[in-house]
């Protein structure tokens, strides 16, 4: 069974069991909640609008990646104890350069614009695939992007001293070339899982 279908079935079971419960399940330790189901069921499309800046300083909006499949995810470079391997996984997925992944771009949005300046992000991203675009902006712009993607996060610690962490979801969001959200890809997905999920939605679209 394709990976994304398995995730859909498991999550459907969660819906039936926990419907209406605000802070559901999951493995979050520092309590970075996601959006309420009520809020997410209403309102504009997920992933728009937003205005951020790339590492080259150029603007990035929800229209920048139209015409391509887009995998968007959030994080920051100053991992406190562990660094998710999402960027490495996506780099591996893109390295295959197969017909599926050639139709895909990825967008990594930092939730820590204070430390993740365009220059800092630019240096960091040299470790990963060039098909992954990193984005930052002002605090207000990043917050607006997080709202657009329904991503809630928490900053914990002493920001003024620079001793803080950011608790955030690690799931990736898949958007079709028309900019419509189509699926989540869990943060622990392998490169093959990512490719299989995208491939399945490409087939569905045609």
């Amino acid at each position: 069974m394709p990976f994304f279908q398995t995730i859909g079935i498991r999550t459907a079971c969660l819906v039936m069991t926990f419907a209406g419960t605000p802070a559901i399940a999951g493995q979050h330790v520092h309590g970075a909640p996601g959006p309420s189901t009520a809020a997410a069921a209403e309102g504009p499309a997920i992933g728009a609008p937003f205005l951020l800046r790339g590492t080259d300083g150029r603007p990035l909006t929800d229209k920048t990646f139209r015409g391509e499949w887009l995998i968007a995810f959030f994080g920051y470079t100053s991992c406190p104890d562990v660094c998710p391997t999402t960027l490495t996984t996506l780099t591996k997925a893109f390295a295959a350069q197969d017909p599926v992944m050639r139709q895909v771009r990825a967008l990594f949005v930092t939730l820590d614009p204070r430390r993740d300046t365009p220059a800092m992000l630019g240096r960091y991203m040299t470790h990963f695939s060039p098909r992954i675009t990193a984005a930052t902006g002002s605090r207000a712009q990043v917050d607006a992007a997080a709202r657009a993607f329904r991503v809630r996060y928490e900053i914990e610690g002493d920001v003024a001293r620079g001793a803080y962490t950011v608790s955030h979801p690690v799931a990736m969001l898949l958007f079709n070339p028309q900019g419509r959200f189509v699926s989540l890809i869990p943060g622990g997905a392998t490169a093959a899982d990512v490719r299989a999920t995208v491939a399945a939605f490409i087939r569905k679209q045609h």
Partner: protein
Amino acid sequence: MRLFHTLLFSLAMAGVSAAGIAQAAAPAQADATDPQSLCFSDAEGRPACLPQWHGRVVLLYVWATWCAPCRPSMARLDKVQALLGGKDFQVVALSVDKRGAPAVANFQARNGIRHLAIFTDADAKAMEALSARAIPLSILVDRQGRVAQRVAGPADWDSPERLASIFTLINRPSGPPSGDKP
């Protein structure tokens, strides 16, 4: 379908956080990974596989130069390798850097790391085989190639407590693992 997608989205985004990855990866129960089949590359790009150290206790450390919490442990591991490395024990520091051995060599030279051999997993095959959703990740393997401990996050392997766990494995007679806690 749209409501299903938004509900699916809400639940999943309420779920795993980056801080939670460490929690999820920390339990010491045996995982499905078979270290016997784990292969990567040495400094010259030649294949290296975990079974080549069969008969020694191995501390496998998955890391990357871009991973801030990974870096301080490298000096500690260098000390541990200097102290214990030999016929009974080996530290295998496995970098998942895309740039491979040159990136690791540069890091090690700048940081005075002298005793750790360079091993790389530039195509992330070993990382995925280990189900490493976050790094750093330490896996202590006994002389028979069985996983004895799995520790997510920085671990002070040069501390008395951690060294004791290594010595326990080194001194254990051949037989089934005793189920050490991390």
